[in-house]
């Protein structure tokens, strides 16, 4: 088991390293000296000199690469020319926002998806199952940013039930320093989390319904029924436990989906998270931020997969026995 964990962690680190390397070389392949802004008028000469020295921008490519890695190890991810601050600082501000959004979306995703999936499995082929199933299918097929625009229009603009984007009221709550401000934060979080979460929930519901149905049909459930236990216990205890296994893999899959969806949802709602930071940096050709964001997003994806694999191994003894994974 320990061996397996160590191997997986080592593989994960290798993957992140490969992503960063790939990003670095792709960016360099496309343009000559991309790590400097196209026009130096907007940046003061001292910054340019400093960056050139730290990252070896006047030296051969492989030297630049080595210097970049070394700087990475010391926490220097370069400077953002558009934001005029170190990339690490900008990321440090943005990541918690994306994290909270992803977490909230994940909660909604699983809560709604699980409930819906189980309900549908229990009431298989009823009117409720079919109607909900189609609605879930439809929501799962929508572009997430389009759903965001629609929700914004209906709930924020027309009904004034939620704020029109942003993360907090700049007047009443510039900092998260009171219970009221926490409530304000949650109020701002609701629509973006719903947008991300509902689309995912629909997929989760479909998945969970199928998993539950498969388990329900299996022998041991019939055995449990034959024993005369209450139907409810049968479901919740036996079927759920086994149906939860593939559910855990969803955690790993959810991460990339959330990060992908977060990019667009953050743009629609002006949520100051990493997705928005990365998009703006890409559009503004702010390449240190881009490589920094690539590093962080791939780390999060790989981490999510790792955690999912660990949970899976913990939950399913068969995996542990088998030992070395693929």
């Amino acid at each position, binding site marked *: 088991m320990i061996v397996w964990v160590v191997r997986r962690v080592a593989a994960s680190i290798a993957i992140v390293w490969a992503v960063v390397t790939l990003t670095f070389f792709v960016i360099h392949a496309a343009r000559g000296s991309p790590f400097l*802004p*196209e*026009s130096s*008028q*907007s*940046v*003061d*000469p*001292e*910054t340019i000199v400093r960056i050139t020295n730290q990252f070896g921008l006047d030296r051969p490519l492989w030297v630049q690469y080595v210097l970049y890695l070394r700087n990475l190890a010391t926490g220097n991810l370069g400077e953002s020319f*558009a*934001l*005029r*601050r170190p990339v690490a600082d*900008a990321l440090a*501000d943005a990541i918690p926002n994306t994290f909270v959004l992803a977490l909230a979306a994940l909660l909604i995703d699983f*809560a*709604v998806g699980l*409930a819906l999936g*189980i*309900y549908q499995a229990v009431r298989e082929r009823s009117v409720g199952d079919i109607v909900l199933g189609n609605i879930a299918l439809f929501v799962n097929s929508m572009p997430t940013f389009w759903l965001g625009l629609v929700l*914004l229009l209906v709930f*924020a*603009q027309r009904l*004034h039930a939620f*704020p*029109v*984007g*942003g*993360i907090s*009221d*700049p*007047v*009443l709550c*510039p900092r998260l320093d*009171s*219970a*009221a*401000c*926490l*409530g*304000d934060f*949650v*109020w701002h979080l*609701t629509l973006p989390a719903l947008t991300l979460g509902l689309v995912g929930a629909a997929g989760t519901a479909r998945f969970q319904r199928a998993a539950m149905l498969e388990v329900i049909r299996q022998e041991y459930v019939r055995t449990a029924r034959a024993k005369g236990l209450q139907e409810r216990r049968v479901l919740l205890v036996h079927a759920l436990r086994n149906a939860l296994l593939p559910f855990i893999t969803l955690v790993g899959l959810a991460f990339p989906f959330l990060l992908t969806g977060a990019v667009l949802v953050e*743009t629609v709602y*002006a949520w*100051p998270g990493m997705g*928005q930071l990365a998009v*703006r940096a890409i*559009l*503004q*050709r702010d390449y240190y931020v881009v490589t920094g964001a690539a590093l962080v997003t791939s780390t999060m994806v790989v981490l999510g997969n790792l955690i999912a694999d660990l949970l899976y191994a913990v939950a399913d003894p068969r995996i542990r026995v088998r030992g070395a994974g693929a």
Partner: protein
Amino acid sequence: MHTPRPTVFAAVACLALLGSCERRGGCTGDHCGTLVIAYAGEPDILLPPVSEFAATRDVTEPIFLKLADLGPSGNTVGDEDFQPQLAERWEWDTPTTLVFHLDPRAHWQDGQAVTAADVAFTYDVYTDTLVNSPFRSSLRQISAVTTRDSLTVVFRFRQRYPEMFYDAVYHMRIMPSHLLREVPRDQWRSTAFGRAPVGDGPYRFVAWKAGQSIELAADSTFFLGRPYIRRLIWRFTPDQQVAVTQLLAGDADAIEVLITPDNVQRACADPKLACYPYKGSAYGYVGFNLAAPGDTTKPHPLFADRDLRRALVLATDRERPLHNVFGELARVPPGPMSQLWWIWDPEIRELPYDSAQAARLLKRLGWIDSDGDGIRDKDGHALSFRLLVPTTSAIRRQYARLLQESFRTAGVDVQLDEVDFSVFNERARAGRFDALLNVWNTDPTPSSGFPQTWTKAGFGRSNYGRYFNPQVDQLVDRAVSAAANRDQARRAWRSAFEMLNQDAPGIFLFATENVAAVSKRFTDVTIRPDSWLALVRSWRVPSDRLTDRDRVER
């Protein structure tokens, strides 16, 4: 299984309600109020000498003072219509020597007094080539700024001309020499002061959350009178439509321009908002690059040809796209000018919209559709160019599409290069474009902005297309400096514009009329067209109309 969402929502609602309950109390009286301004964009740095962003101008307006400011009439000639600010009075020792006496009550927000040394330092910075201020050329007529004592400053000019006083006071915001003297001149664009400025104006800088908001607080010791509104907050949005949405939802209190007719209609019909129309200071145009993209030594393969440019202008209907985008809220300008300029005259001669003549001209130049694909060609090359447009402006994107289609019907293929605003600026400055769709926010008078954009003085600055006609330059010089009276100046300007129009360095598309919207709870709202927040310190919220946001005490 019962989904917990309804109860969570109720809990959140209770918390929010509780929050609002907590805040009752707080500020009362006349000097409360929070003005939240929705703004599409963000300043780059809060240091006036090094930034030409409109956002910077808006935010630094309440922080830093000028020597004197424009009066309500907007007249830029002479000195009678100007209002004292840092200077309490002034006199002319000779026709080219102007002496300012600073108000002894003026002080920086860290306590130090504002002295004549600050003014001299500011002039030095604005004209320093290392700082490379975009306003440097506007100050070229001033030969020296010296101090006579700690409260007396002397401006010396190279010659007499009508707008001397305007040039002395309008372009420079006085900077604190004791805080900025040590900053190396080539590092001004990134100095920390620019992220946390200390000024002498009615408002103090409080905080700047990058990408989100900037907050200013009223300085109760401001020597010209305590501002009424306690706090100014700019909320930055990714684009104009989001800003309008925030305004309509009540998340923001004010917006500088509503731009489109449907926004104006929605905002003015809103019972909580009041609309304020005022003369617009912006004009938009398509600028042709007369030099080869990326190489200013060679001429542009298409646009160096004056006749081709003229044909393209003749082929463009400017009224209908304007009506599509702006409705009645803009007018086609008779040249590169905004409605704010006193020389605005629809009678100025310009190239008309005449598609038949355009077709004839193009044919005469050899551009005919020989392969039947709908696009004219000559010697195997299609008549095609790329139009550079910033993605951040919905107006320009819409115009770009309208123009693309209208050119297509004339047999010209236009491809759109839609890039981020910062990339747009870099490419424009570097000359790496065929044509670009640009908008200028102008000064109240043409003498500072026009030469920067349309004469040789603007090469390397705002004259992105490198248009140069020595006769136009001469006429402009005459209009600005030599004209003894307004009529002469007007005639010179008119000739300059007409000559420029014949050269067709661009297609002048729109000059806006602005409509601002401010929440009705604000009274005494006066807007000066050249800088809409110039008089914000007299805006107020009567104490019976205070809301929770207004009562916040910090």
